[in-house]
């Protein structure tokens, strides 16, 4: 059996590759045609080749869990059918993301500065007052280029009408970019001929862009800056990515104990040559653990005095401590307003309609429509503590109504979106599976958006949960110029 796209149908959802009539969407023609020509055996061969490539590279994908007997090596499932976005459409998304992150950075700077947006009545003071990610210690600090969120991972979803929405912005320590890069390497090994035929925009410049962005933050711009990646250590689930990025950029991967703050309030690393000054820290440690002198005093992951060094401008930290204040699902609801307020522009990318439970009217609406809502706590990530109304029981609905009433500021609700689908291999067949997309936006002296991003796919039929811990996998994402080469 070869793939018959005529029989492929994604009911109720927008499919990224195939129209409801079974035809290829713009940009997808080549690959759809190509896959039609492959026999069952060919397909299986390609899938096996991808699996093998993953396993060989798999050492690098390893997640260690030393609690059990000797550690479990996990490989994130990968699907060989790519998700395709035409370049023309992507350039809009690209512009929308830049606009969004620019406004977010201005917002964060404003909150830690004059708080003009509150004075002007656009953003309510109460929301800020109850934000768990607001760091008082950052008041009055002005990071270089006015940028706080240097690396942002925004999650995009498409609804049944084909509109792309921003679902959330990850401004603390967004991860996943290494999978995006590795997925492309696997695809090049498995489908080299497609890369000859299609104009797929390359993505492998990311590490260089990241390095350049970090270098642009250096407090000593005249010298060759010393950049480090600060990791919480081997037991962190994203450790692979930390070490991968350090290697790709050719910089040191350090733990908190490798660094110290000197009597001159500069940050140094301990080397066999003695101390060496550090200019830029790409930190993958949550800000509450960064400086035991200022935040969590028990933290062993951080560096005592690093906030002092940072506030004096002796070292750059990306993302800046305190940037997480905008990584809050209530704050999210105000992003379109921020764009109008700070940039005097209309938002290019829309938000998913969001109801704030702190508002009496909106809360009433949420409670009376609870079975159709997705309810999320304001400050969690990774899909924790949320409820998908249509998939939940009556009991859970009740439970969440209780939670909302108890702490309205901490909850938002959104209508359940029918996420778009992409054809995916499942037990020898090709079936539609739901996806989202996480592009990464770099902001330093200038801005850069990855071409595409990490496409996560829910491998369980009908599931909307794409998280790796809950049966999610990933796909390569192709931004394709139409017309081919």
């Amino acid at each position, binding site marked *: 059996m070869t793939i018959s796209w005529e029989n492929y149908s994604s009911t109720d959802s927008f499919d990224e590759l195939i129209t409801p009539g079974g035809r290829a969407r713009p940009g997808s023609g080549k690959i759809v045609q190509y896959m039609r020509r492959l026999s069952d055996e060919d397909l299986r061969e390609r899938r096996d080749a991808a699996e093998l490539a993953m396993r060989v590279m798999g050492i690098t994908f390893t997640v*260690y869990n030393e609690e059990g007997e000797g550690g479990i090596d996990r490989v994130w499932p990968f699907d060989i059918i790519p998700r395709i976005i035409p370049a023309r459409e992507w350039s809009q998304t690209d512009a929308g993301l830049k606009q969004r992150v620019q406004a977010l950075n201005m917002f964060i700077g404003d909150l830690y500065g004059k708080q003009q947006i509150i004075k002007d009545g656009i953003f309510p003071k109460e929301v800020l007052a109850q934000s768990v990610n607001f760091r008082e210690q950052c008041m009055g600090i002005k990071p270089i280029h006015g940028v706080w969120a240097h690396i942002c991972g925004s999650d995009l979803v498409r609804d049944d009408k084909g509109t792309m929405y921003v679902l959330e912005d990850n401004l603390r320590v967004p991860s996943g970019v290494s999978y995006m890069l590795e997925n492309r390497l696997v695809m090049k090994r498995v489908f080299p001929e497609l890369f000859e035929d299609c104009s797929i925009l390359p993505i492998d410049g990311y590490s260089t862009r990241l390095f350049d962005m970090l270098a642009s933050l250096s407090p000593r711009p005249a010298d060759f800056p010393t950049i480090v990646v600060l990791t919480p*250590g081997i037991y962190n689930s994203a450790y692979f990515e930390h070490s991968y990025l350090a290697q790709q950029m050719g910089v040191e*991967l350090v733990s908190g104990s*490798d660094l110290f703050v000197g009597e001159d309030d500069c940050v140094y690393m301990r080397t*066999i*040559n*003695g*101390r060496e000054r550090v200019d830029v820290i790409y930190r993958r440690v949550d800000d509450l653990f960064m400086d035991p002198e200022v935040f969590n005093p028990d933290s062993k992951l951080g560096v005592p005095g690093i906030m002092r060094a940072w506030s004096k401008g002796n070292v750059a930290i990306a993302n800046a401590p305190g940037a997480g204040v905008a990584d809050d699902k209530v704050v999210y609801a105000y992003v379109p307003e921020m764009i109008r307020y700070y940039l005097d522009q209309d938002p290019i990318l829309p938000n998913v309609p969001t109801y704030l439970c702190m508002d009496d009217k909106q809360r009433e609406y949420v409670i009376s429509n609870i079975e159709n809502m997705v309810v999320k706590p304001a400050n969690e990530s990774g899909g924790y503590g949320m409820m998908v109304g249509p998939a939940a029981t009556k009991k859970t609905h009740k439970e969440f109504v209780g939670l909302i009433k108890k702490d309205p500021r901490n909850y938002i609700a959104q209508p359940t979106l029918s996420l778009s689908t992409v054809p995916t291999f499942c037990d020898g067949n090709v079936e539609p599976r739901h996806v989202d997309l996480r592009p990464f936006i770099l902001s330093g002296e200038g801005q850069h958006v990855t071409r595409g991003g990490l496409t996560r796919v829910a491998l369980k039929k009908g599931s909307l949960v794409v998280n790796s811990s809950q049966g999610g996998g990933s796909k390569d994402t192709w931004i394709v110029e139409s017309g081919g080469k």
Partner: protein
Amino acid sequence: MLLSSVAERVYWFARYVERVENTARILLVNNNLLLDMPRNSTLGWEPIISITGIPDKFFENHKEATERNVMSFIIMDAKNPSCMLSSITHARENLRTSRAIFPRAVWETLNDLYNYARENKSAVLTRRSRYDFLRHVIDSCHLISGTLSASMSHDQIYEFVRMGRNIERADMTSRVIDVRAENLLPKNDEELKPFDDIQWKSVLDSLAGYQMYRRYVHVRVRGVEVLRYLLQDKYFPRAINHCLNQVELCLRNLPLNEAPQYALVKAQRMVRNARVEKIVNDSLNDYINQLQLAFIDINAELTSSYFEGREVSTAIYYGEPAVKETA
């Protein structure tokens, strides 16, 4: 640029790999030696505990040093913090956090060894399967050293591998001499005289040195000559003199080397100037103790120069330890 923490892990990784290999060889040799000794000989498995383990810890839990007890204590007993399994685990932990700088094959070999040792450890309890197990452990360690030597840049990081390996070797050679010699020295026992040679040969075997000794020393295996060879030979890789000379070469390629060099030279003098005949007859035990203290000194100086992270000061001069970072 080399982070202190990376240098430290690399150094200890190399020490543990070397320790695992040496332990395996000592067990193998003792195994063979015992087959040659008369039934009622005092020599047994007890010396092995003294070489590789902590005798007190052992006798807390065992009345007798039987073959089975000793084997299990040295290979896998959780009550023995320096058992072979835990050395393999420590080597692997150190490597894991510095994997990016080593050839991938090294990680794979060590990981294989780790799994093999955990799965097959009980093989050492029976004489028949013991040989294969220990042989496999030794071969894996050689594979790691060989891969490092053949496919890793011989840069500063590699110097820490070599230093770790050589200091561990020197230390192990001194322990083997110490324990063996103690068993051999009460030489009034006429009955055991015929076995004296066998035992000295086994000392050389424990250090994989019998063949080399025969080629270079040209006299039959005699206590004094064996000691002289193991202490002062320049060419034999497990002779203490050779090991220390290797460390000397490594230190030349490293910065801030004054303090460790100072400690090293002290040990080198002790070895080169040793009057072996005299030592054998009246103070071998003392001498070896002094020597081991000198090794501990070298290790301590390496630790404070390279692993703890000092401030660079242009004012550092010979013999004066650098100012320790206190911030």
